[in-house]
């Protein structure tokens, strides 16, 4: 199996490019180094799944890409441009769907348009939101309150909200982490279908290796804190994968390698098997 085969020289095509990023948080007991030598390259239109030990700095990575904070050292580029702050072309989704309880599902999905597409007509906004809700199977629920929906449905609505303004980059931080296994697999398929329907480049943080392989075009393994890029696995599976692919020997091998890498990252690798 090929290890990391990122030889550089394809910078122009990379929509997201993180180079030598280091970052430390200031805490009461001194600086806490969180990222140390992070390199990530995500070509346009592809899907990067990021896995790593708990607390290693994955959410910090998403905040850097979203322009919500700046690294102490190193650079983050979108489109070859240095990220200096938030941009309208980013969509975010979290483990907590953070829907606004005082808005209906439809109005929740429309929210980003109120910020970034101030001139878009109300009818266009509604049409766009309804299209997305239809794609994720929430037609008929648009006038419900978030509390009236199941966890999986809320996460679907949250996905619609992060995509409604047609972002170039979708950043997801363990979006399916709180869902049961069946609902999660449903959402993987929804995610795959959305990707087919709309062009966007994705960074997905996850704790689920099967999820990373099913959805990703590459799986990036981060080391324990302070995190650096430890391992990158290209996922050469067909574009239109079904859940069956997860039960093939090829994927079993990939999962095996990834699990070993995670053990190394956690610092408990007991030699080779």
């Amino acid at each position, binding site marked *: 199996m090929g290890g990391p085969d990122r030889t550089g020289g394809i910078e122009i095509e990379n929509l997201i490019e993180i180079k030598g990023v280091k970052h430390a948080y200031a805490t009461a007991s001194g600086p806490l180094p969180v990222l140390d030598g992070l390199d990530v390259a995500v070509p346009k239109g592809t899907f990067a799944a990021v896995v790593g030990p708990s607390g290693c700095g994955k959410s910090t990575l998403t905040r850097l890409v979203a322009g919500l904070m700046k690294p102490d050292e190193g650079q983050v580029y979108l489109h070859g441009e240095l990220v200096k702050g938030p941009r309208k072309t980013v969509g975010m989704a979290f483990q907590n769907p*953070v829907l606004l309880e005082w808005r209906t599902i439809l109005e929740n999905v429309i929210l980003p348009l109120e910020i970034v597409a101030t001139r878009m007509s109300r009818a266009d906004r509604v049409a766009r939101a309804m299209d997305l809700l239809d794609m994720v199977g929430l037609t008929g629920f648009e006038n419900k309150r978030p509390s009236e929906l199941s966890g999986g449905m809320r996460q679907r609505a949250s996905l619609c909200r992060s995509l409604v303004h047609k972002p170039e980059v979708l950043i997801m931080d363990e979006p399916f982490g709180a869902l049961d296994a069946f609902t999660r697999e449903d959402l993987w398929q929804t995610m795959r279908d959305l990707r087919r329907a709309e062009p966007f480049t994705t960074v997905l943080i996850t704790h689920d290796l099967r999820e990373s392989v099913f959805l990703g075009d590459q799986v990036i393994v981060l080391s324990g804190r302070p995190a650096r890029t430890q391992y990158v696995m290209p996922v050469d599976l067909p574009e239109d994968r079904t859940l069956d692919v997860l039960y093939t020997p090829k994927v079993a091998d990939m999962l095996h390698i990834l699990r070993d890498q995670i053990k190394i990252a956690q610092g408990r690798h007991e030699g080779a098997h």
Partner: protein
Amino acid sequence: MFNKVAVPVMSILVFLGLWELLVWANGWPNYKMASPSDLPPAFWQYRDLFLIMGWQTLWRTVVGLLLAVVFGTLLGMIIGFSRVARDALYPLLVGFNAVPKATLVPVIALLFIGQHDFNTVLMAFMISFFPIAVSVGIGLSTLEPEYRDILRALGASNFTIFRKIALPKTLPEFFGALKVAATLAFIGTNLVEIVSPHGRGLGALFKSGETNGNYPLMFAVLIALAVLGIVLYYAVVFLEKIFAGWAERAPG
């Protein structure tokens, strides 16, 4: 709907009945404790005064409360958004809140001599802004970062984030505090009305009843105060239903 009106009405009737019974059973004369049956004549006799004084008490309470809402919300925003401001202002606020407001009556009476309306509104304001400031402050400072980030990642300004997310999200806490504040403002108004010489409002009417040994009048004033308090409280509940009704979980 029947229960919402009938149950409270019944409980009030039971209360009045027990009160009447208590006075009757003990054979208390009027100068010891008035009974509910003494009250309607007292109300009728002083009906003009009750209207005028009741109005004075009401408008000064409401103005004080409105000031408290504006000031309390601004203060809450400051302590909610800025850690430094929170650390700096909390001790001051708590200390100020701990001072019994009765002790402030002579202070403001001396500061603003003869400004009875102003003094009363000021007291209603001072006694009631604290819970509003604290609840708005806590509501804002405990906003989960993800709520901020979904808009901040799109380049939304702090003001937009406040208007679209933080403000509506704190409305339930705000109205909870407003209910407490409304009652407090009412107490503040009455405090000044009772303590000030030549005061106005229901508090002054109470005092004149006291000076003249007119016990039915005093009790009638207490009842009128209770009624005004209830009206004010339910006005807040009404506003809460309109603006923060979403926070009420549907039953079942």
